Protein backbone atom coordinates (compact mmCIF):
# COMPACT_ATOMS: atom_id res chain seq x y z
CA UNK A 1 0.00 0.00 0.00
CA UNK A 2 2.99 2.25 0.56
CA UNK A 3 3.66 2.45 -3.16
CA UNK A 4 0.43 4.37 -3.64
CA UNK A 5 0.90 6.73 -0.72
CA UNK A 6 2.12 10.20 -1.58
CA UNK A 7 5.10 11.45 0.35
CA UNK A 8 3.83 14.01 2.80
CA UNK A 9 4.60 15.15 6.31
CA UNK A 10 2.18 12.56 7.74
CA UNK A 11 3.99 9.68 6.09
CA UNK A 12 7.39 10.96 7.21
CA UNK A 13 6.09 11.29 10.76
CA UNK A 14 4.63 7.78 10.62
CA UNK A 15 7.93 6.30 9.44
CA UNK A 16 9.85 8.22 12.10
CA UNK A 17 7.51 6.78 14.73
CA UNK A 18 8.08 3.32 13.32
CA UNK A 19 11.83 3.71 13.78
CA UNK A 20 11.31 5.01 17.31
CA UNK A 21 8.93 2.12 17.97
CA UNK A 22 11.74 -0.26 16.98
CA UNK A 23 13.95 1.25 19.72
CA UNK A 24 16.26 2.92 17.18
CA UNK A 25 16.18 5.93 19.48
CA UNK A 26 14.77 9.41 19.00
CA UNK A 27 17.92 11.18 17.88
CA UNK A 28 18.97 8.49 15.40
CA UNK A 29 15.42 8.18 14.02
CA UNK A 30 15.15 11.94 13.54
CA UNK A 31 18.56 12.03 11.83
CA UNK A 32 17.59 9.26 9.44
CA UNK A 33 14.28 10.91 8.56
CA UNK A 34 16.05 14.24 8.12
CA UNK A 35 18.48 12.73 5.62
CA UNK A 36 15.58 11.06 3.84
CA UNK A 37 13.66 14.36 3.80
CA UNK A 38 16.52 15.89 1.80
CA UNK A 39 16.17 13.14 -0.81
CA UNK A 40 12.46 13.85 -0.94
CA UNK A 41 13.12 17.57 -1.44
CA UNK A 42 15.44 16.70 -4.31
CA UNK A 43 12.42 14.94 -5.81
CA UNK A 44 14.50 11.79 -5.84
CA UNK A 45 11.81 9.62 -4.17
CA UNK A 46 8.43 9.23 -5.83
CA UNK A 47 6.25 7.38 -3.36
CA UNK A 48 6.01 5.73 0.05
CA UNK A 49 7.52 2.45 -1.10
CA UNK A 50 10.66 4.15 -2.44
CA UNK A 51 10.84 6.15 0.78
CA UNK A 52 10.75 2.99 2.87
CA UNK A 53 13.44 1.37 0.73
CA UNK A 54 15.60 4.45 1.15
CA UNK A 55 15.27 4.32 4.92
CA UNK A 56 16.25 0.65 4.83
CA UNK A 57 19.31 1.62 2.79
CA UNK A 58 20.21 4.20 5.44
CA UNK A 59 20.03 1.57 8.18
CA UNK A 60 22.03 -0.91 6.12
CA UNK A 61 24.64 1.77 5.52
CA UNK A 62 25.00 2.39 9.25
CA UNK A 63 25.42 -1.33 9.92
CA UNK A 64 27.75 -1.92 6.97
CA UNK A 65 30.11 0.84 8.08
CA UNK A 66 31.05 -1.05 11.23
CA UNK A 67 34.45 -2.72 10.93
CA UNK A 68 33.96 -6.44 11.37
CA UNK A 69 36.92 -8.75 11.74
CA UNK A 70 34.52 -11.68 11.73
CA UNK A 71 34.24 -14.28 14.43
CA UNK A 72 37.67 -15.89 14.28
CA UNK A 73 38.08 -19.11 16.24
CA UNK A 74 41.62 -19.95 15.12
CA UNK A 75 43.68 -18.37 17.89
CA UNK A 76 44.60 -21.75 19.34
CA UNK A 77 43.02 -21.51 21.84
CA UNK A 78 40.40 -18.82 21.42
CA UNK A 79 39.39 -17.35 24.78
CA UNK A 80 35.92 -15.84 24.87
CA UNK A 81 34.40 -13.88 27.76
CA UNK A 82 30.61 -13.59 27.81
CA UNK A 83 29.17 -10.58 29.64
CA UNK A 84 25.99 -8.58 30.06
CA UNK A 85 23.31 -7.44 32.47
CA UNK A 86 20.99 -9.83 34.30
CA UNK A 87 18.69 -12.20 32.44
CA UNK A 88 19.65 -11.29 28.86
CA UNK A 89 20.55 -14.85 27.82
CA UNK A 90 24.31 -15.24 28.46
CA UNK A 91 24.22 -18.81 29.78
CA UNK A 92 21.75 -20.01 27.13
CA UNK A 93 23.77 -18.33 24.37
CA UNK A 94 26.94 -20.05 25.56
CA UNK A 95 25.15 -23.39 25.23
CA UNK A 96 24.11 -22.47 21.70
CA UNK A 97 27.60 -21.19 20.80
CA UNK A 98 29.29 -24.31 22.15
CA UNK A 99 27.04 -26.42 19.95
CA UNK A 100 27.63 -24.15 16.94
CA UNK A 101 31.40 -24.33 17.38
CA UNK A 102 31.34 -28.10 17.71
CA UNK A 103 29.55 -28.06 14.39
CA UNK A 104 32.62 -26.23 13.10
CA UNK A 105 34.84 -29.04 14.37
CA UNK A 106 36.18 -27.12 17.33
CA UNK A 107 36.74 -28.69 20.74
CA UNK A 108 35.03 -26.47 23.26
CA UNK A 109 35.35 -25.95 26.99
CA UNK A 110 32.89 -23.85 29.00
CA UNK A 111 33.71 -22.23 32.32
CA UNK A 112 31.03 -21.79 35.01
CA UNK A 113 32.31 -18.51 36.43
CA UNK A 114 28.90 -17.37 37.67
CA UNK A 115 29.47 -18.42 41.25
CA UNK A 116 26.82 -16.11 42.57
CA UNK A 117 23.35 -16.78 41.20
CA UNK A 118 21.22 -19.67 42.41
CA UNK A 119 21.66 -22.78 40.23
CA UNK A 120 23.75 -20.90 37.65
CA UNK A 121 26.40 -23.62 37.57
CA UNK A 122 23.81 -26.40 37.26
CA UNK A 123 22.12 -24.49 34.43
CA UNK A 124 25.40 -24.33 32.49
CA UNK A 125 26.11 -27.97 33.27
CA UNK A 126 22.93 -29.00 31.52
CA UNK A 127 23.84 -26.89 28.50
CA UNK A 128 27.36 -28.35 28.39
CA UNK A 129 25.81 -31.81 28.41
CA UNK A 130 23.39 -30.93 25.62
CA UNK A 131 26.18 -29.46 23.50
CA UNK A 132 28.53 -32.32 24.31
CA UNK A 133 31.34 -30.11 25.59
CA UNK A 134 33.70 -30.05 28.54
CA UNK A 135 32.81 -27.88 31.53
CA UNK A 136 35.01 -26.45 34.27
CA UNK A 137 33.32 -25.60 37.54
CA UNK A 138 34.35 -25.37 41.16
CA UNK A 139 31.89 -26.81 43.70
CA UNK A 140 31.08 -24.43 46.50
CA UNK A 141 33.33 -21.68 45.19
CA UNK A 142 32.21 -18.10 45.56
CA UNK A 143 35.19 -16.81 43.61
CA UNK A 144 34.80 -16.49 39.84
CA UNK A 145 38.52 -15.82 39.46
CA UNK A 146 39.36 -19.25 40.89
CA UNK A 147 37.14 -21.00 38.34
CA UNK A 148 38.69 -19.05 35.48
CA UNK A 149 42.20 -20.04 36.62
CA UNK A 150 41.09 -23.68 36.63
CA UNK A 151 39.55 -23.34 33.18
CA UNK A 152 42.72 -21.84 31.68
CA UNK A 153 44.68 -24.76 33.10
CA UNK A 154 42.20 -27.25 31.68
CA UNK A 155 42.37 -25.65 28.23
CA UNK A 156 46.15 -25.99 28.38
CA UNK A 157 45.92 -29.63 29.42
CA UNK A 158 43.31 -30.67 26.89
CA UNK A 159 44.35 -28.41 24.02
CA UNK A 160 40.76 -27.26 23.62
CA UNK A 161 40.20 -24.93 20.67
CA UNK A 162 37.77 -22.57 22.39
CA UNK A 163 37.03 -21.49 25.96
CA UNK A 164 33.67 -19.84 26.68
CA UNK A 165 33.56 -18.11 30.06
CA UNK A 166 30.08 -17.59 31.54
CA UNK A 167 29.88 -14.69 33.97
CA UNK A 168 27.19 -13.58 36.38
CA UNK A 169 24.70 -11.03 35.16
CA UNK A 170 25.50 -7.61 36.55
CA UNK A 171 24.17 -4.09 36.21
CA UNK A 172 26.66 -1.74 34.54
CA UNK A 173 26.06 0.95 37.16
CA UNK A 174 27.35 -1.29 39.97
CA UNK A 175 31.04 -0.34 40.37
CA UNK A 176 31.96 -3.34 42.51
CA UNK A 177 30.53 -5.84 40.06
CA UNK A 178 32.09 -4.06 37.08
CA UNK A 179 35.46 -4.08 38.87
CA UNK A 180 35.03 -7.79 39.50
CA UNK A 181 34.44 -8.31 35.79
CA UNK A 182 37.53 -6.28 34.89
CA UNK A 183 39.51 -8.55 37.20
CA UNK A 184 38.07 -11.66 35.54
CA UNK A 185 39.08 -10.24 32.18
CA UNK A 186 42.63 -9.56 33.42
CA UNK A 187 42.95 -13.20 34.46
CA UNK A 188 42.08 -14.40 30.97
CA UNK A 189 44.92 -12.30 29.53
CA UNK A 190 47.60 -14.15 31.49
CA UNK A 191 48.23 -17.44 29.76
CA UNK A 192 47.49 -16.90 26.09
CA UNK A 193 48.61 -14.20 23.71
CA UNK A 194 46.01 -11.56 22.85
CA UNK A 195 43.43 -13.13 25.14
CA UNK A 196 40.57 -12.62 25.58
CA UNK A 197 40.12 -12.81 21.84
CA UNK A 198 36.44 -11.98 22.04
CA UNK A 199 34.43 -10.24 24.72
CA UNK A 200 30.81 -10.88 23.80
CA UNK A 201 28.19 -8.47 25.11
CA UNK A 202 24.82 -10.18 25.19
CA UNK A 203 21.91 -7.80 24.72
CA UNK A 204 18.20 -8.52 25.06
CA UNK A 205 16.18 -7.36 22.03
CA UNK A 206 13.56 -5.76 24.29
CA UNK A 207 16.12 -3.38 25.78
CA UNK A 208 15.37 0.29 25.39
CA UNK A 209 17.71 3.28 25.31
CA UNK A 210 19.46 2.05 28.44
CA UNK A 211 21.12 -0.53 26.19
CA UNK A 212 23.43 2.18 24.88
CA UNK A 213 24.51 3.05 28.41
CA UNK A 214 25.02 -0.66 29.15
CA UNK A 215 27.22 -1.09 26.11
CA UNK A 216 29.30 2.02 26.89
CA UNK A 217 29.99 0.92 30.44
CA UNK A 218 30.88 -2.64 29.46
CA UNK A 219 33.15 -1.36 26.69
CA UNK A 220 34.93 0.95 29.15
CA UNK A 221 35.36 -1.71 31.79
CA UNK A 222 36.04 -4.88 29.83
CA UNK A 223 36.58 -3.90 26.23
CA UNK A 224 33.66 -5.54 24.45
CA UNK A 225 34.52 -6.71 20.93
CA UNK A 226 31.24 -8.12 19.62
CA UNK A 227 27.51 -8.00 20.23
CA UNK A 228 24.92 -10.77 20.31
CA UNK A 229 21.24 -9.81 20.37
CA UNK A 230 18.92 -12.36 21.94
CA UNK A 231 15.15 -12.94 21.96
CA UNK A 232 14.61 -11.65 18.43
CA UNK A 233 11.93 -14.35 18.15
CA UNK A 234 9.75 -12.00 20.19
CA UNK A 235 8.07 -8.81 18.97
CA UNK A 236 10.90 -6.45 19.97
CA UNK A 237 13.00 -5.32 17.02
CA UNK A 238 16.31 -4.84 18.80
CA UNK A 239 16.75 -1.41 17.24
CA UNK A 240 19.00 -0.34 20.10
CA UNK A 241 21.66 -2.52 18.47
CA UNK A 242 21.75 0.00 15.60
CA UNK A 243 22.46 2.83 18.02
CA UNK A 244 25.15 0.75 19.77
CA UNK A 245 26.69 -0.37 16.50
CA UNK A 246 26.66 3.21 15.25
CA UNK A 247 28.07 4.93 18.32
CA UNK A 248 30.51 2.29 19.50
CA UNK A 249 31.47 0.76 16.17
CA UNK A 250 30.65 -2.69 17.45
CA UNK A 251 29.79 -5.58 15.11
CA UNK A 252 26.83 -7.86 15.77
CA UNK A 253 27.95 -11.46 15.29
CA UNK A 254 24.91 -13.58 16.14
CA UNK A 255 21.27 -13.35 17.08
CA UNK A 256 19.28 -15.56 19.45
CA UNK A 257 15.90 -16.62 18.09
CA UNK A 258 14.61 -19.05 20.67
CA UNK A 259 15.33 -21.12 23.75
CA UNK A 260 16.63 -24.27 22.04
CA UNK A 261 20.22 -25.13 21.22
CA UNK A 262 19.86 -24.49 17.50
CA UNK A 263 18.20 -21.11 17.93
CA UNK A 264 21.34 -19.14 17.09
CA UNK A 265 21.90 -17.48 13.72
CA UNK A 266 24.86 -15.57 12.30
CA UNK A 267 23.88 -11.90 12.05
CA UNK A 268 22.53 -10.91 8.67
CA UNK A 269 22.19 -7.18 8.02
CA UNK A 270 19.43 -7.46 5.44
CA UNK A 271 17.27 -9.83 7.50
CA UNK A 272 17.66 -7.62 10.55
CA UNK A 273 16.63 -4.47 8.71
CA UNK A 274 13.71 -6.26 7.04
CA UNK A 275 12.52 -7.40 10.47
CA UNK A 276 12.66 -3.81 11.71
CA UNK A 277 10.06 -2.93 9.09
CA UNK A 278 7.64 -5.86 9.59
Amino acid sequence: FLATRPIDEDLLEELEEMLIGADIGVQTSMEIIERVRREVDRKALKNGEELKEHIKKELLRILAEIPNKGFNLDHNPTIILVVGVNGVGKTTTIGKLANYMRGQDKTVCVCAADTFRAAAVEQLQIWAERAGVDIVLKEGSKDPAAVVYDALERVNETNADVLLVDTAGRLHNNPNLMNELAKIRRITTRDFENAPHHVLLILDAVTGQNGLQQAKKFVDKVGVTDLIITKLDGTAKGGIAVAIANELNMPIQFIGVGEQMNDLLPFNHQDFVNLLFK
Partner: protein
Amino acid sequence: SLSEKLQKSFRNLTGKGKISEENVQSALKEIRLALLEADVNFKVVKKFVNEVKEEALGQEVTRGLDPGQMLIKIVNEKLIEILGGSSPELNFKGSGPHIIMMVGLQGSGKTTSCGKLAKRLAAEGRHPFLVPCDVARPAAILQLQTVGKQVDIPVFDSHGIGKPLDIVKKATVEARNTGRDVLIIDTAGRLHIDEALMGELKSLRAFLEPSEILFVADAMTGQDAVTSARSFHEAMDITGVVLSKMDGDARGGAALSIKSVTERPIKFIGTGEGMEGFERFHPDRVASRILG
Protein backbone atom coordinates in the same frame (compact mmCIF):
# COMPACT_ATOMS: atom_id res chain seq x y z
CA SER B 1 17.39 18.66 32.57
CA LEU B 2 13.86 18.88 31.25
CA SER B 3 13.01 21.84 33.49
CA GLU B 4 15.95 23.80 32.09
CA LYS B 5 14.88 22.99 28.52
CA LEU B 6 11.30 24.06 29.24
CA GLN B 7 12.46 27.31 30.81
CA LYS B 8 14.44 28.00 27.65
CA SER B 9 11.48 27.37 25.36
CA PHE B 10 9.36 29.74 27.39
CA ARG B 11 12.04 32.41 27.51
CA ASN B 12 9.86 34.90 25.65
CA LEU B 13 6.81 34.40 27.78
CA THR B 14 6.78 36.52 30.91
CA GLY B 15 4.44 38.57 33.02
CA LYS B 16 0.77 38.60 32.03
CA GLY B 17 0.96 36.24 29.07
CA LYS B 18 -1.09 33.10 28.57
CA ILE B 19 0.17 29.70 27.51
CA SER B 20 -0.99 29.50 23.90
CA GLU B 21 -0.87 27.10 20.96
CA GLU B 22 2.12 28.90 19.52
CA ASN B 23 4.39 29.32 22.50
CA VAL B 24 3.73 25.90 23.94
CA GLN B 25 4.80 23.96 20.83
CA SER B 26 8.54 23.89 21.48
CA ALA B 27 7.94 23.06 25.15
CA LEU B 28 5.72 20.12 24.16
CA LYS B 29 8.44 18.94 21.79
CA GLU B 30 10.91 18.90 24.67
CA ILE B 31 8.50 16.91 26.82
CA ARG B 32 7.94 14.40 24.01
CA LEU B 33 11.69 14.01 23.54
CA ALA B 34 12.32 13.51 27.25
CA LEU B 35 9.64 10.82 27.52
CA LEU B 36 10.80 8.97 24.39
CA GLU B 37 14.38 9.01 25.61
CA ALA B 38 13.09 7.58 28.87
CA ASP B 39 11.66 4.65 26.86
CA VAL B 40 7.99 5.53 27.18
CA ASN B 41 6.16 4.00 24.22
CA PHE B 42 5.62 6.55 21.42
CA LYS B 43 1.83 6.02 21.32
CA VAL B 44 1.61 6.53 25.08
CA VAL B 45 3.76 9.66 24.70
CA LYS B 46 1.48 11.06 22.00
CA LYS B 47 -1.61 10.66 24.18
CA PHE B 48 0.20 12.02 27.23
CA VAL B 49 1.54 15.12 25.49
CA ASN B 50 -1.88 15.92 24.04
CA GLU B 51 -3.44 15.73 27.49
CA VAL B 52 -0.72 17.98 28.89
CA LYS B 53 -1.37 20.46 26.09
CA GLU B 54 -5.12 20.50 26.85
CA GLU B 55 -4.41 21.20 30.46
CA ALA B 56 -1.76 23.83 29.80
CA LEU B 57 -3.60 25.89 27.21
CA GLY B 58 -5.20 29.00 28.50
CA GLN B 59 -3.41 28.81 31.81
CA GLU B 60 -2.60 32.29 33.01
CA VAL B 61 1.08 32.95 33.50
CA THR B 62 0.89 35.11 36.59
CA ARG B 63 3.64 37.47 37.57
CA GLY B 64 6.50 35.73 39.31
CA LEU B 65 5.51 32.27 38.11
CA ASP B 66 7.69 30.65 35.49
CA PRO B 67 5.65 29.05 32.66
CA GLY B 68 8.29 26.36 32.33
CA GLN B 69 7.84 25.48 35.98
CA MET B 70 4.08 25.45 35.54
CA LEU B 71 4.36 23.02 32.68
CA ILE B 72 6.75 20.77 34.59
CA LYS B 73 4.25 20.73 37.43
CA ILE B 74 1.46 19.67 35.07
CA VAL B 75 3.65 16.94 33.57
CA ASN B 76 4.85 15.66 36.92
CA GLU B 77 1.38 15.56 38.46
CA LYS B 78 -0.03 13.84 35.42
CA LEU B 79 2.72 11.21 35.53
CA ILE B 80 2.10 10.55 39.21
CA GLU B 81 -1.63 10.35 38.59
CA ILE B 82 -1.23 7.79 35.80
CA LEU B 83 1.43 5.74 37.59
CA GLY B 84 -0.37 5.70 40.90
CA GLY B 85 -4.03 5.76 41.55
CA SER B 86 -5.08 2.16 41.94
CA SER B 87 -4.51 0.14 45.07
CA PRO B 88 -1.06 -1.40 45.29
CA GLU B 89 -2.11 -3.80 48.03
CA LEU B 90 -2.14 -7.52 47.37
CA ASN B 91 -5.60 -9.05 47.33
CA PHE B 92 -6.15 -11.52 50.14
CA LYS B 93 -9.92 -11.37 50.28
CA GLY B 94 -11.82 -14.51 51.13
CA SER B 95 -10.52 -17.67 52.72
CA GLY B 96 -7.17 -19.15 51.76
CA PRO B 97 -5.00 -20.56 50.61
CA HIS B 98 -4.46 -17.59 48.35
CA ILE B 99 -2.63 -18.00 45.07
CA ILE B 100 -0.23 -15.59 43.42
CA MET B 101 0.95 -16.35 39.87
CA MET B 102 4.13 -14.75 38.54
CA VAL B 103 4.17 -14.37 34.77
CA GLY B 104 6.23 -12.57 32.15
CA LEU B 105 8.83 -12.69 29.40
CA GLN B 106 12.04 -14.69 29.61
CA GLY B 107 14.61 -13.39 32.07
CA SER B 108 12.43 -10.60 33.51
CA GLY B 109 13.04 -11.63 37.14
CA LYS B 110 10.11 -13.90 38.03
CA THR B 111 11.95 -16.63 39.95
CA THR B 112 13.98 -14.10 41.93
CA SER B 113 10.85 -12.03 42.65
CA CYS B 114 9.04 -15.15 43.92
CA GLY B 115 11.64 -15.44 46.68
CA LYS B 116 11.50 -11.76 47.51
CA LEU B 117 7.70 -11.80 47.68
CA ALA B 118 7.71 -14.91 49.85
CA LYS B 119 10.14 -13.27 52.26
CA ARG B 120 7.94 -10.18 52.49
CA LEU B 121 4.75 -12.16 53.06
CA ALA B 122 6.39 -14.29 55.73
CA ALA B 123 7.48 -11.12 57.52
CA GLU B 124 3.82 -10.08 57.48
CA GLY B 125 2.92 -13.24 59.35
CA ARG B 126 1.72 -15.34 56.44
CA HIS B 127 2.88 -18.85 55.54
CA PRO B 128 3.99 -18.81 51.90
CA PHE B 129 4.71 -21.89 49.80
CA LEU B 130 6.85 -21.60 46.69
CA VAL B 131 5.75 -23.71 43.71
CA PRO B 132 8.18 -24.15 40.78
CA CYS B 133 6.24 -24.60 37.56
CA ASP B 134 9.05 -23.93 35.07
CA VAL B 135 9.77 -27.34 33.62
CA ALA B 136 11.48 -25.97 30.51
CA ARG B 137 14.46 -23.96 31.68
CA PRO B 138 17.53 -25.94 32.80
CA ALA B 139 17.80 -26.01 36.60
CA ALA B 140 14.81 -23.68 37.08
CA ILE B 141 13.28 -25.85 39.80
CA LEU B 142 16.63 -26.03 41.61
CA GLN B 143 16.95 -22.24 41.26
CA LEU B 144 13.65 -21.66 43.10
CA GLN B 145 14.53 -24.31 45.70
CA THR B 146 17.83 -22.54 46.34
CA VAL B 147 16.08 -19.17 46.58
CA GLY B 148 13.54 -20.74 48.96
CA LYS B 149 16.36 -21.88 51.26
CA GLN B 150 17.82 -18.36 51.20
CA VAL B 151 14.55 -16.93 52.52
CA ASP B 152 13.68 -19.93 54.68
CA ILE B 153 10.43 -20.67 52.86
CA PRO B 154 9.32 -24.19 51.91
CA VAL B 155 9.39 -25.07 48.22
CA PHE B 156 7.30 -27.79 46.58
CA ASP B 157 9.53 -30.40 44.95
CA SER B 158 8.41 -30.30 41.34
CA HIS B 159 11.14 -32.63 40.08
CA GLY B 160 9.94 -35.58 38.04
CA ILE B 161 6.33 -34.43 37.62
CA GLY B 162 6.70 -32.95 34.16
CA LYS B 163 3.52 -30.91 33.64
CA PRO B 164 2.78 -27.56 35.33
CA LEU B 165 -0.90 -28.49 35.81
CA ASP B 166 0.04 -31.72 37.59
CA ILE B 167 2.56 -29.80 39.69
CA VAL B 168 0.00 -27.28 40.93
CA LYS B 169 -2.56 -30.01 41.62
CA LYS B 170 -0.13 -31.81 43.91
CA ALA B 171 1.25 -28.59 45.38
CA THR B 172 -2.15 -27.26 46.44
CA VAL B 173 -2.80 -30.51 48.30
CA GLU B 174 0.58 -30.34 50.02
CA ALA B 175 -0.01 -26.68 50.90
CA ARG B 176 -3.26 -27.51 52.61
CA ASN B 177 -1.73 -30.43 54.47
CA THR B 178 1.13 -28.31 55.77
CA GLY B 179 -0.85 -25.22 56.70
CA ARG B 180 0.58 -22.95 54.00
CA ASP B 181 -1.86 -20.11 53.34
CA VAL B 182 -0.41 -18.46 50.25
CA LEU B 183 1.03 -20.16 47.20
CA ILE B 184 3.48 -18.33 44.97
CA ILE B 185 3.56 -19.94 41.53
CA ASP B 186 6.74 -19.46 39.49
CA THR B 187 6.02 -19.95 35.80
CA ALA B 188 8.38 -20.31 32.86
CA GLY B 189 9.27 -17.19 30.94
CA ARG B 190 7.44 -17.13 27.62
CA LEU B 191 6.71 -14.95 24.62
CA HIS B 192 3.27 -13.33 24.50
CA ILE B 193 3.10 -14.46 20.86
CA ASP B 194 3.58 -18.12 21.75
CA GLU B 195 -0.02 -19.34 21.57
CA ALA B 196 0.69 -22.77 23.04
CA LEU B 197 2.51 -21.39 26.06
CA MET B 198 -0.03 -18.61 26.62
CA GLY B 199 -2.68 -21.32 26.43
CA GLU B 200 -0.83 -23.30 29.10
CA LEU B 201 -0.81 -20.22 31.32
CA LYS B 202 -4.55 -19.80 30.84
CA SER B 203 -5.29 -23.36 31.88
CA LEU B 204 -3.10 -22.95 34.95
CA ARG B 205 -5.10 -19.89 35.86
CA ALA B 206 -8.39 -21.68 35.29
CA PHE B 207 -7.41 -24.40 37.72
CA LEU B 208 -5.78 -22.15 40.35
CA GLU B 209 -8.26 -19.23 40.39
CA PRO B 210 -5.47 -16.99 41.69
CA SER B 211 -6.17 -13.88 43.72
CA GLU B 212 -3.17 -12.20 42.11
CA ILE B 213 -1.52 -12.52 38.70
CA LEU B 214 1.61 -10.38 38.69
CA PHE B 215 3.26 -9.45 35.42
CA VAL B 216 7.00 -9.20 36.08
CA ALA B 217 8.69 -6.79 33.68
CA ASP B 218 12.25 -5.58 33.27
CA ALA B 219 12.68 -1.86 34.02
CA MET B 220 15.01 -1.48 31.01
CA THR B 221 12.36 -2.63 28.53
CA GLY B 222 11.92 -0.27 25.62
CA GLN B 223 9.06 0.32 23.21
CA ASP B 224 7.97 -3.34 23.29
CA ALA B 225 6.70 -2.96 26.87
CA VAL B 226 3.29 -1.95 25.56
CA THR B 227 2.97 -4.98 23.26
CA SER B 228 3.97 -7.64 25.77
CA ALA B 229 2.05 -6.10 28.67
CA ARG B 230 -1.11 -5.74 26.60
CA SER B 231 -0.91 -9.35 25.36
CA PHE B 232 -0.31 -10.80 28.81
CA HIS B 233 -3.13 -8.67 30.17
CA GLU B 234 -5.56 -9.71 27.43
CA ALA B 235 -4.68 -13.36 27.97
CA MET B 236 -4.55 -13.43 31.75
CA ASP B 237 -6.32 -10.35 33.11
CA ILE B 238 -3.33 -9.54 35.28
CA THR B 239 -3.95 -7.93 38.65
CA GLY B 240 -0.66 -6.12 39.07
CA VAL B 241 2.88 -5.51 37.90
CA VAL B 242 6.34 -5.99 39.35
CA LEU B 243 9.04 -3.83 37.79
CA SER B 244 12.39 -5.56 38.30
CA LYS B 245 16.00 -4.31 38.11
CA MET B 246 15.12 -0.77 39.17
CA ASP B 247 18.55 -0.64 40.80
CA GLY B 248 19.87 -0.13 37.27
CA ASP B 249 20.01 3.32 35.68
CA ALA B 250 17.24 2.82 33.12
CA ARG B 251 14.85 5.78 33.25
CA GLY B 252 12.01 3.27 33.49
CA GLY B 253 9.55 4.67 30.94
CA ALA B 254 8.28 1.11 30.64
CA ALA B 255 6.42 1.77 33.90
CA LEU B 256 4.29 4.44 32.23
CA SER B 257 3.75 2.32 29.12
CA ILE B 258 2.70 -0.76 31.09
CA LYS B 259 0.47 1.18 33.48
CA SER B 260 -1.23 3.04 30.62
CA VAL B 261 -1.99 -0.04 28.61
CA THR B 262 -3.07 -2.40 31.41
CA GLU B 263 -4.43 0.10 33.95
CA ARG B 264 -3.25 -2.34 36.59
CA PRO B 265 -1.23 -1.11 39.58
CA ILE B 266 2.51 -1.49 39.75
CA LYS B 267 2.72 -3.15 43.14
CA PHE B 268 6.44 -3.72 43.70
CA ILE B 269 9.83 -2.93 42.28
CA GLY B 270 12.92 -5.11 42.34
CA THR B 271 15.94 -3.21 43.61
CA GLY B 272 18.69 -5.82 43.57
CA GLU B 273 19.60 -9.45 43.14
CA GLY B 274 19.37 -10.16 46.86
CA MET B 275 16.14 -11.18 48.58
CA GLU B 276 15.93 -7.86 50.42
CA GLY B 277 15.83 -5.96 47.11
CA PHE B 278 12.05 -5.60 46.98
CA GLU B 279 10.10 -2.42 47.66
CA ARG B 280 6.67 -0.94 47.31
CA PHE B 281 6.19 1.09 44.16
CA HIS B 282 6.28 4.86 44.69
CA PRO B 283 4.71 6.77 41.76
CA ASP B 284 6.35 10.08 42.67
CA ARG B 285 9.86 8.63 42.72
CA VAL B 286 9.42 6.83 39.42
CA ALA B 287 7.81 9.94 37.87
CA SER B 288 10.85 12.10 38.62
CA ARG B 289 13.14 9.32 37.41
CA ILE B 290 11.30 9.12 34.08
CA LEU B 291 11.52 12.90 33.67
CA GLY B 292 15.26 12.68 34.21
